[in-house]
């Protein structure tokens, strides 16, 4: 198969970038999208040119590294991660636009690579349960209903790729934040820090420059882990409760 690629090239964070044309020729239909880029890169390197930089690692849909906007859609035509897109999903001769995950809080590092450490800082603000190593009670001493455990697992499945941010017209990270708040808030172990966690994570989200949710549901549509937007509702509810409690009793 043959394709024309229009790829975002940007030398560094402060350089200006542009879309450059590349021909991807003789691509096997069984190749993955990233393997197609590998083939193009091999050709560039053989010609002494610089390869197209993109993030990727596990290539099995779980690490959350890969982060391309393909033809305007975060992670491309199939719901799932970029690494799980295969060339048979395209037509021979297609022109394909490849861009990075854009967002105010995701500055470009180079070409298609962005800096998503803002998401790490949201977790650092409160996305954890403070249980000192060695101090845990027997795991079966806290029964958790299967329904709650399953719902917590649905939320915990988030891979932290940031597609929700890239897809959102407001560059909001509400789906990401809500997934962590829900995962920990649904578990009894997460209760002691729940209010404090919600307030701090939302504060960090704002500080990083992420926008707010205005119900476009684009995040849900591209999420490779199928995190539903109903978790955002849960986040809003938890936030209101925490904010009211904070103003009443001064939660810090």
């Amino acid at each position, binding site marked *: 198969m043959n394709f024309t690629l229009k790829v975002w090239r940007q030398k*560094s964070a402060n350089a200006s970038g542009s879309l450059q044309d590349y021909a991807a020729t003789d691509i*096997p239909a*069984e*190749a*993955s999208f*990233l*393997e197609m880029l*590998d*083939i193009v890169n*091999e050709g560039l*390197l*053989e010609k002494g*040119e*610089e*390869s197209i*930089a993109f*993030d*990727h*690692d*596990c*290539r*099995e*849909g*779980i*690490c*959350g*590294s890969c982060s391309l906007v393909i033809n305007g859609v975060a992670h491309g035509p199939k719901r799932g991660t970029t690494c799980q897109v*295969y060339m048979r999903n395209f037509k021979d001769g297609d022109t394909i636009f490849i861009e990075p995950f854009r967002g105010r809080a995701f500055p470009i*590092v*180079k070409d298609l*690579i962005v800096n*998503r*450490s803002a*998401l*790490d800082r949201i*977790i*650092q*603000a409160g996305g*954890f*349960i403070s*249980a*000192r*190593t*060695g101090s*845990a*009670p027997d*795991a*079966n001493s806290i*029964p*958790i*209903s*299967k329904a709650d*455990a399953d719902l917590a*697992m649905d939320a*915990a*499945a988030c*891979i*932290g790729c940031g597609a929700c941010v890239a897809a959102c017209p407001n560059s909001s990270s509400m789906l990401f934040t809500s997934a962590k708040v829900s995962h920990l808030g649904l*578990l009894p*172990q997460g209760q002691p820090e729940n209010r404090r966690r919600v307030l701090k994570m939302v504060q960090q989200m704002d500080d990083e420059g992420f926008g707010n949710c205005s119900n476009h549901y684009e995040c849900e549509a591209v999420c490779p882990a199928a995190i539903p937007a109903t978790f955002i509702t849960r986040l809003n509810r938890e936030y209101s409760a925490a904010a009211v409690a904070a103003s009443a009793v001064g939660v810090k």
Partner: protein
Amino acid sequence: MPLDSKIPSGPLEEKWEKHKFESKLINPANRRKFEIIIVGTGLAGASAATALGEMGYKVKCFCYQDSPRRAHSIAAQGGINAAKNYQNDGDSVYRLFYDTIKGGDFRSREANVHRLAEVSAAIIDQCAAVGVPFAREYGGLLANRSFGGAQVSRTFYARGQTGQQLLLGAYSGLSKQIADGNVQMFYRTEMLEVVLVDGHAKGIVVRDLASGEVSSHAADTVVLATGGYGNVFYLSTNAKGCNVTATWRAHKKGAFFANPCFTQIHPTCIPVSGEYQSKLTLMSESLRNDGRVWAPKRKEDVAKRPQDIPEADRDYFLERKYPSFGNLAPRDISSRSAKEVCDEGRGVGPGGLGVYLDFAESIGRLGEATIRERYGNLFEMYENITGEDAYHQPMRIFPAVHYTMGGLWVDYNLMSNVPGLHVLGEANFSDHGANRLGASALMQGLADGYFVLPYTIGNYLATTGGKKVTTDHPEFKKAEEAVRERTSKLLGIRGKRTVDSFHRELGLLIWDKCGMARTKKGLTEALKKIPALREEFWENVAVTGTGAELNQALEKAGRVADFLEFGELMCIDALKRNESCGGHFREEYQTADGEAKRDDTKFAYVSAWEYSGKLDKPTLHKEPLVYEKVHLATRSYK
């Protein structure tokens, strides 16, 4: 130099308790005076950073990924073992210990494995406490399953994403420590040298992968938790970035590399479909519970559609050879059997490298809905990758490299022979012998990080580790210079052949000669070819761009350069081990019916290789494996 494994004296069951009591403690107020460098943020690294940060040490933690949450532990699917005996089915610390020793084909260190089994229960408690959403029963208690041929249900899991959930648990603890200021995190930063001062590991040299800046970091001790070397095969189930660089650089600074030829080939992966292929995808072993493995009896049938091959012309080779375990035979045995079938020309799919995993019988018996419920996500994944619908035609599977049991040699304290250099998780060698059992890798990573190193590290810090150094020390300047020189050498070649092309050739060679089955002839051949390939690499590799920027070609080149050296050691080790055990099958050493023939009189030892300055002439040190408790037996799965 004699290898001192520092195994405590006394009865096996009491060694760890005794050792903990006898280990040196550091006063809480003094801990902040000690700096610890941790490289890698998988289960072992993240849990160690968390535990040591909580204790009050000053930790600097490094990962090459853009976030610590992306380390490859995240991809583990199946589960984590623990001797909880929640199912009342007769499990115990001793049974978990024994199964692990036996599974490792009696090539692991008894005392370490017993300790692993002892701390396994605390791992589950810790993970549940930090919010890992393990599978539960309706009563709210934890669910278990039996895994990897175990006769008890001791595996805890979180859907098919256990590694992800455990890593996110450890990562959340790490995140808290970062927020609290106990851990300083360095993202997108790759370790390129270990720095030794007066023979002690006192720091590292790293390259910031975003800016290209090379810098030094000094500490009181260095911890490597940098994973395995499976990518020496190019195609593996490892993430693309997994590499041997950190452990290899440490090896070249004096750390012994133990049992490098012990690698694990997983039987149920999606086969290779072409030369462009960049990685192999594992499908959970649980599929073998309901799928039957077969290949055509006759070569002439391999190109036929599977549905057109009648029952009588099919060879259900695992059921035929291992009637009592059948399709559930252990990983090494299943993998080797598939290879034999393909070697006979009876393999199916592209290149004849595949066998069928057929669900027709189970679907007939249980209905498609039941199979969909059990394995729906795996069938979906298979269809996404291959475009084939496994409900209506058999899957094609083939073995792929999955895990490496070898690693840097460590003593009971998890310290290498280089004082101050600790090694955790897959990066060390100690617990899995010649073959790792399913659901044991996650257990070992977290055991090392949460519950072993925090107790043993004090032994080094309180006794010999006192000397403080700064990055002004000339050894740091020397190491930085070595890194810069190497970088400019790679960039100066401007050759014609890409890094991937070299890596593919090396990988194929290692796979052929040092993969599922090895021979003296093949290994000798590989040992001729690897140095030649390495030479060509240094003359003709195409690395563009500069060192002062994000440069993925340069990153890969550095890693492949190390694989090109490491591969040689692997083959030397395989050639030296004149026996078959676990994942290491030497064709010359097999029983009359084709089973692995171990040689306990000559090879019940750990091969610990020392870098001699010459890659083709490493020095072998042997740590005898002394079994105080376990009786050496032959594994039989017939």
